[in-house]
């Protein structure tokens, strides 16, 4: 980490988005994570995605659990409300927040310990419920804050910094998210901003449960030979199935690719995902196919990345609960309290 505060003076020519904000307006205080930490790259990608999508920072709520990854919401979107909750329990807090106000954008940030170990139950159930959110797991395969123990996403056979070999099978959060009904599932790598930023943008535009598993090497405890979550290992084994551009209303749509190699997916809010297929037979709308493909490539030692599954017209939890259009937190006494007359009728029925 650096101990230097971020400069308050900004270059007058900094590019502004449609809302008149610069990238600086989407940043937070300086990160206290280790220099070179993959998580900081993800924070930067979030900043860029929100800036490019012209999202009003205060309409985003950022929530996290406990751990290195869960500290990061402090370091981006300083004008947004944030909630650093309890270890492994961000999904429930986010679900509750979402129930209270369906109009905000919910960004949940978690880690592999937070989501795959202590919080695997809440991770699973938030996906099942179809909570409208972006759920990013900053996946480094180790516990950083407690100095390098294996996490549940560590691959079997991976070696720790101290030379211990992991004997336990890894939990695949992408596989779980696919199986449990997430309507947007992606995997990316913190070292690949070109891939990650559009994925975050697409997820933010998605109106359902969007999950991104982002491999994010831990420079302090999991970036050595024998690790399967190191920068070198991920670069060597990264196999992207597609590459993505997000086209919002104001961008111009131009297609300059060979037919059959590009698919345009229009999401419910009107945003268009332009997918360039890198793996010709991969169908991004086939949930079962995605599961099979992921397993096959994993067995072959590859780490598949990209947009793995998307349902452009998801139904979220509010749709299932049939809640009113007005956010529940805006309903006042008149809207909520049935009053004395209704109570008198209840009294009469209880005699």
């Amino acid at each position: 980490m650096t101990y230097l505060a971020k400069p308050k003076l900004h270059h007058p020519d900094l590019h502004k988005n449609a809302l008149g904000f610069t990238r600086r307006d989407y940043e937070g205080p300086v990160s206290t994570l280790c220099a070179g930490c993959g998580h900081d790259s993800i924070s930067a990608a979030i900043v860029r995605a929100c800036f490019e999508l012209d999202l009003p920072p205060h309409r985003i709520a950022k929530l996290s659990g406990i751990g290195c990854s869960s500290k990061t919401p402090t370091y981006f979107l300083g004008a947004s409300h944030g909630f650093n909750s309890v270890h492994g329990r961000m999904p429930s807090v986010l679900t509750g927040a979402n129930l209270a106000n369906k109009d905000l954008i919910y960004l949940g940030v978690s880690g592999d310990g937070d989501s795959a170990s202590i919080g695997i139950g809440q991770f699973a159930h938030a996906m099942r419920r179809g909570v409208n959110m972006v759920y990013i797991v900053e996946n480094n395969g180790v516990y950083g804050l407690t100095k390098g123990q294996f996490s549940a996403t560590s691959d079997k056979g991976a070696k720790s910094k101290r030379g211990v070999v992991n004997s336990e099978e890894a939990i695949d959060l992408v596989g779980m998210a696919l199986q449990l009904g997430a309507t947007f599932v992606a995997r990316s790598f913190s070292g690949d901003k070109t891939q990650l930023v559009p994925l975050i943008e697409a997820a933010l535009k998605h109106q359902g449960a969007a999950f991104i598993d982002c491999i994010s090497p831990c420079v302090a405890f999991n970036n050595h030979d024998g690790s399967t979550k190191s920068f070198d290992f991920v670069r060597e084994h990264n196999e992207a199935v597609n590459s993505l551009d997000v086209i919002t209303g104001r961008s111009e749509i131009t297609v300059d690719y060979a037919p059959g190699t590009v698919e345009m997916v229009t999401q419910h809010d009107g945003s268009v995902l332009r997918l360039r297929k890198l793996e010709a037979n991969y169908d991004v709308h086939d949930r079962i196919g995605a599961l099979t493909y992921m397993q096959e490539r994993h067995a072959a030692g590859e780490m598949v990345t990209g947009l793995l599954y998307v349902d452009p017209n998801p139904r979220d939890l509010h749709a299932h609960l049939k809640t009113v259009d007005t956010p529940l937190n805006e309903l006042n006494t008149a809207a909520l309290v049935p009053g004395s007359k209704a109570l008198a009728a209840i009294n009469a029925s209880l005699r």
Partner: protein
Amino acid sequence: MLQQVDRIEGLQRVNDFVVKFANVNGSGSASANSMFAKAVLRMGVASTPRNIFPSNIQGLPTWYEVRVSEAGHLGARGGGVDLMVAMNPQTWDEDVKSIVPGGYLFYDNTKPMPASKFREDIVVLGVPLTEMTNKAYSDPRQRQLFKNIVGLGALAALLDMDAEAIEGLLAEQFKGRQKLIDANFQALHMGVNWVKANMAHPIGLRMRKATTVGDRIFIDGNSAAGLGAVYGGATVCAWYPITPSTSLVEGFQRYATRMRFDKETGKSKVAIVQAEDELASIGMVIGAAWNGARAFTATSGPGISLMGEFIGLAYFAEIPAVIMDVQRSGPSTGMPTRTQQTDITACAYSSHGDTKHILLIPEDPYECFEFGALSFDLADRLQTPVFVMLDLEIGMNERLCKPFDWDDNRVLDRGKVMTKEDLDAGKVFGRYLDVDNDGITYRTYPGTHPSKGAFFTRGTSKDRMARYSEEGPDYQENMDRLLKKHKTAASLVPPAILTPAKSPTKYGAIYFGSTSAPMTEADEILIRDHGAGLDLLRLRAFPFGPEVEKFIEDHDVVFVVEQNRDGQMRSMLINELEIHPKKLVKVLHYDGTPITARFISAAIGERIAADKTASSR
């Protein structure tokens, strides 16, 4: 009718007895039993039913005990059964044994039973229910269902009950289905007529019209608390099924579905989520309340244990949360279907670190409704968890209580929330800045303002401006302010209620929750047996107000009556008010049955008698 032995004269009591129904599960007896309790009420006499059931769905015996009391006593009486309606062969021996000498045994005598199955000191009332229904009906289901109604008719004739009261209830239950009404009337009168033609009637236990009930209503505490949550403006409910709290959420759902439905759009002004566990339930409640909705969960002891970490977060990060705890016997799984007041300290000090929470303790369904609604105002006002402490006794049993009332001028108190207008007007916002010197600070809802008022909520230590801080002074200032806020809470929660004795006494009794009715009755017994009653103080909340300290100061001996093993409330009084332990005498009942007036008066009477003997020596 061989078994209709009637050698002795039975008990002679009017409008004051206990009837217990021993049921066969799945026989449809519940509806007829409940109708009996309601028919007593329709005659103007107080009746208090209790479901006695094991932690099981089908196959194990259950009982339904009804106390009939013109004097209006609503607590469990204890001390045996005056009339046993023994319909379950499985529990026959135990049931017959529980009848008081001179009491009555009502049973179906279609099949003869050996004399050894009876007692000589009770009155046996055999009615051939199966024979009658087999003759009248051919369909097995009808035979079973109408047997209950025939039995009810027979009981009505034996007790000199108003058959019209039962007819009225049947007509209401089957409103609009005249055929069913007629059939039920027919069954009812089959029972009435058989008794009138074949038995000496009425028996020594009799009903007579009275005016005890008045305009009171009859409802279970869980439903009342659920209705209270609707009136309290709850829009988010997250819960996990657990006995005995499940029917609270079901009650909320029932009322909310009806009263929060938007006819124009067909949409609902409420979100109810059945979570995967209690951790998720409370997490959702906290997330929703952080985001400005009124949210609650309902649970019981094991759920409270699981929620501990989150409750600490809500306390330290200062987020409103309403937790309705319907207490059952602990520890661990304990006795899930038996009552106890056993989560008092677990709730008051839930979670690690120094914490103190708000408890509201209702005595009956009326207060379940009142506190159910009030809890949301208090949670928002104080920005902290608020527990509504029911127990199985008042939660899962229907109980006579005052009718609910509501002031239409009442506005939901959302507490200190800074709005966009406040922020634009230049009001200083610091999330943990104690501007009013009451320990309560201002908050903003997420999404309020484009550039002002955002802050980071965390369970870690922070300074007044919500910035992460591990500085000792910042931490300590925050902890001290939380204590100040807890003191402020003492002035906002419902105060304890004093019922003074007719003449000055050095004895006082402190009690709370479902102990209320038995305590009041116990005081009457003490007046009768010892010539003097006690000053009574009913706690309704924690933190304790100054009236509690004064009450203890004003007496030499204060009995603390509670339904747990360790005297949890007594410990809290000792610790919070720095009372000498010797001054507070434990009266503890904890076998899972509801505490009774007989138990309380015996324990207190013994101590008073011992004091008298000691002073006369």
